[in-house]
């Protein structure tokens, strides 16, 4: 039996009296691929954030890694299920430091940063290694998203919640990203994607979760 990462039952969300979504249930297992569709304003981004507790559901039951005996803390859950959001951290920081510093977090104390793996991923996206010494705020939108995704891959999460990650990527970069994501999904990485780019979602495939309620 495949391990259940997230089990969500009857989730609702209302903001200031306005209902976003209601009665959403989801069982995300190892290797599952989902994509969410629905008009804008139906709370797809909010839903992804709420899956890892960055936003609260108004009601509903959620549990993580039910097969594990011990309860994981929220940071531990988030270290295994990465939410890659639209927020762009345009900081005055070098790409290498941005990637390396995340390994200092307590939840990753078992992991070590390996620069050769970073370089392998950069190769796969055909991005020059010089990018490591660039400042984050000098990157294009697409490059920044790739850097954040690579940072995620280096930490080997079990699931990725992708919120408009292909924004700012050209067709070429997008297809490289899709290829890697599908490869990872085959190896057991779970994916849940939100995007206004329907073609991109279709190429990733998987099950549909409809938000037009």
């Amino acid at each position: 039996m495949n391990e259940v990462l997230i089990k969500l039952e009857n989730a609702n969300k209302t903001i200031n009296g306005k209902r976003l979504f209601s009665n959403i249930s989801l069982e995300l297992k190892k290797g599952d691929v989902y994509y969410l569709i629905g008009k804008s304003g139906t709370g797809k981004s909010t839903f992804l954030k709420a899956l890892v507790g960055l936003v609260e559901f108004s009601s509903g039951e959620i549990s993580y890694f039910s097969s594990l005996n011990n309860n994981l803390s929220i940071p531990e859950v988030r270290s295994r299920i990465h939410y890659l959001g639209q927020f762009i951290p345009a900081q005055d920081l070098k790409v290498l430091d941005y990637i390396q510093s995340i390994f200092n977090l307590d939840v990753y104390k078992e992991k070590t940063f390996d620069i050769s793996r970073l370089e392998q991923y950069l190769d796969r996206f055909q991005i020059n290694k010089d990018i490591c010494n660039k400042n984050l705020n000098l990157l294009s939108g697409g490059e920044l998203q790739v850097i954040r995704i690579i940072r995620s891959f280096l930490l080997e999460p079990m699931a990725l919640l992708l919120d408009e990650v292909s924004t700012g990527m050209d067709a070429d970069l997008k297809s490289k990203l899709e290829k890697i994501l599908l490869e990872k999904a085959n190896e057991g990485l779970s994916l849940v994607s939100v995007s206004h780019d329907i073609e991109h979602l279709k190429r990733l495939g998987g099950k549909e979760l409809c938000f037009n309620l």
Partner: protein
Amino acid sequence: MNVGPEQILFSCLLVFITIGLSFLIGLNLEKKLFIAQIRSIVQLILLGYALLWFFKFNHPLTFFALFLFMILVATHTVSSRVRKKFKGLGWISFHSLFLPALITGLYTFFYAIPQTPWYDVNKTIPLFGMIIGNSLTGISLSLDSFINAFSQRKNEIEDLLAMGATRMESVKSLIKNSLNIGMTPILNTMNVVGLVSIPGMMTGQILAGMEPFEAAKYQISIMLIICFVIFLSSMGALIMATLRFFDVNHRFKSELLTDE
């Protein structure tokens, strides 16, 4: 030193020049400057008489009443100096002033600068004035910069939280920055004291005939105590603000920030 009423008018003239300049270049500080000026004149004159009156009641109750009064005024000031308002700001201001000042104050009156009796109002109240006044500056500087950084660097914080940072880890660099800002005035003072700035109280004591070394000893203790209390109260305020803005599930409650 001879300061008569006319001489005070000369000093007031300087503020009127500032007000005039503020008006000319459109700083909009005229009203604030005027009120602050009137307040300092009235408050200082009243203080002299009030202190004389209070010193007649040398009793722990007077000690605590005056202490509480000063804390409340300081709380109000901190709350109004932090530019981004949020629910709970008053609570944080009060607690970050009250506890560190009380702890440091009692430590001072029992050990560092012992008083007999420990509550000796005419010594402890001026000391409390320095302790609370300096905490106030430290807290308002560091808290203001911290809350500002929250709204400007919201993305950075959420990025870290999403990757599994705890709430404390997600604001660690902001706390570091803000504490630095809060500590800068006292660090500057400690470095130039005796070279550029000459403590008024120490000068007064020497003029009043105290041994220079005796007067210096007193001043040294006060500086160190103030440095400690600024650190403690600013740190306390920042930690309380972090707990206020993040819940136990390490979620950033950005909805608490109201735009004025």
